[in-house]
């Protein structure tokens, strides 16, 4: 009970902070929407070999990938925010209270996830006029998968930030983790276009499964094996990274 209450308090505060700094939100929207408008139209022809006939087909393949990139990359960079707060004394101030230790970090992570999901919804809505259609139930399930990915990325980033508490070193570390993960997941173009050896490597990448799962849900193939494999993988990874981050945090702060 106390844990939930404390998490809620931290969550509320972080959301209030996001609300008061709209610049961050706007920047978060502009980039994905630019991709949506300026890049996705190229895809109709590029994706033709995968069976995409219309713009709607292209968007159904591209939008889920874009959402995966959004939650992963933004999530990965949330560690910088944590570093800033660790330095500014805001976290110090809550650490001297008897508030639940895990709540201090989970409340923050949940607020990041909320913001990212808000952005995901806006991007989906923007894609609709381009002719993209998606079934509501499967869309919700895709959002659950995306939210878990966001939580995982965010927790991983927090853990890395506490491991290497220097912004200068954290940037390259995050890049070196996020780049192979996204390249080998087929977020921009599905790896069905890739040569066999690339697919073999990608199959070891958990994000490959979650990306394919999200895409299958958008294209209306919920029975695809990537959906349940992706879901299992992302639940396990989120649990793992959240445990790691909360442990690191608790150890660092008592």
């Amino acid at each position, binding site marked *: 009970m106390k844990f939930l209450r404390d998490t809620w*308090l931290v969550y509320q505060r972080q959301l209030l902070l996001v609300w008061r700094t709209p610049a961050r939100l706007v920047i978060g929207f502009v980039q994905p929407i630019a991709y949506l408008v300026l890049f996705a139209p190229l895809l109709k022809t590029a994706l033709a070999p995968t069976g995409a006939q219309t713009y709607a087909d292209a968007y159904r393949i591209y939008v889920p990938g874009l959402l995966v990139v959004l939650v992963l990359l933004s999530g990965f960079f949330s560690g910088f925010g944590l570093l800033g707060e660790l330095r500014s*004394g*805001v976290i*110090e*101030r809550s650490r*001297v209270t*008897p*508030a639940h230790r895990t709540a201090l970090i989970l409340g923050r992570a949940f607020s990041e996830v909320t913001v990212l999901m808000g952005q995901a919804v806006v991007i989906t809505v923007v894609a609709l006029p381009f002719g993209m259609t998606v079934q509501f139930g499967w869309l919700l399930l895709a959002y659950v998968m995306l939210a878990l990915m966001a939580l995982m990325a965010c927790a991983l980033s927090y853990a890395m930030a506490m491991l290497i508490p220097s912004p200068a070193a954290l940037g390259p570390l995050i890049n070196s983790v996020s780049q192979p993960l996204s390249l080998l997941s087929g977020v921009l173009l599905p790896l069905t276009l890739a040569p066999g050896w690339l697919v073999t490597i990608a199959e070891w990448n958990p994000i490959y499964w979650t990306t394919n799962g999200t895409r299958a849900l958008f294209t209306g193939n919920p029975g695809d094996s990537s959906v349940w494999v992706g879901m299992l993988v992302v639940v396990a990874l989120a649990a793992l990274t959240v445990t790691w981050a909360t442990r690191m945090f608790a150890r660092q702060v*008592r």
Partner: protein
Amino acid sequence: MIEVKGLRKSFTLGKRRKTRSVEAVRGVDLSVAEGEIFGFLGPNGAGKTTTARILCTLLEPDDGEAVIAGADLRKDPGAVRTRVGYVPQGGTTTDEITAREELVLQARMYGIGKAEAVERTEKALAAFELTEFADRQCKTYSGGQRRRVDIAMGIIHEPKVLFLDEPTTGLDPQSRAHLWDEVRRLRDQGMTVFLTTHYLEEADALCDRIAIIDHGEIVALGTPSELKHGVAGDVVTVGLNGSGPRAAELFDGRDYVRKLELGDDGLRLYVDDGSTAMPQIMRVLDGGDIHFDTVEVHRPSLDDVFLTKTGRSLRDK
């Protein structure tokens, strides 16, 4: 109210093979009575903040015992947290949040219900003269106002002990004086205040008792006047240019000189009575053909206490 015994803490610095261990706090013992302002005076890096952070449960000590407001630091850090308030160095307010929001949140983090939190916030805002701009974002506040929000947050749960880490660093003289009054007011209401500072004036004017800390060890402990009286009667400072070591040699072993120190500002002679020592000092200077600019007699300050205990001046830092 605070009983500390044999507190120790060291940190590992550096990377991989070049690691070295730095002892930040080496065996600190102290005892702070209820309702006093206790000052921890020392240069930067002396271990003041580390000690304060250990006592607020933010750092685990390597060794030692502490009981704060009746709660054992090691066995029951949770109980310590409810009984102490801590205001870290440099402030904790967030630019985009208002003072009222910060205070309500901080109260609620202590498990206080919403209605009660709002009520306490109202009182704290009034007590710290913040009501007027309580609904403006913190980025619009002056340094002194922000500091008052910090302290109001530190006492929102009515702790028995308040820890203030360098509370007036970076404030202008007027805000500093204002803050001192606030701290005295809290003491007069029965709160015990433990503050760290590297300002001599602050320790002297504000604190009921002081511990002087250097390299992680307490080198002197007492009321400001006890400490100053512990230093020999008067201090004569001779402003020299260039011939310091030679002058120091001339005074070494004179029976009226208890102790001498050669510093950046000249030669300091600790004597029993400045008025009788002065003529003798002038004669020695003349006889030794030492060129000097000024001679000054003054009562010992806390800096002289620091200097006699550590051989360094706190002002140089």
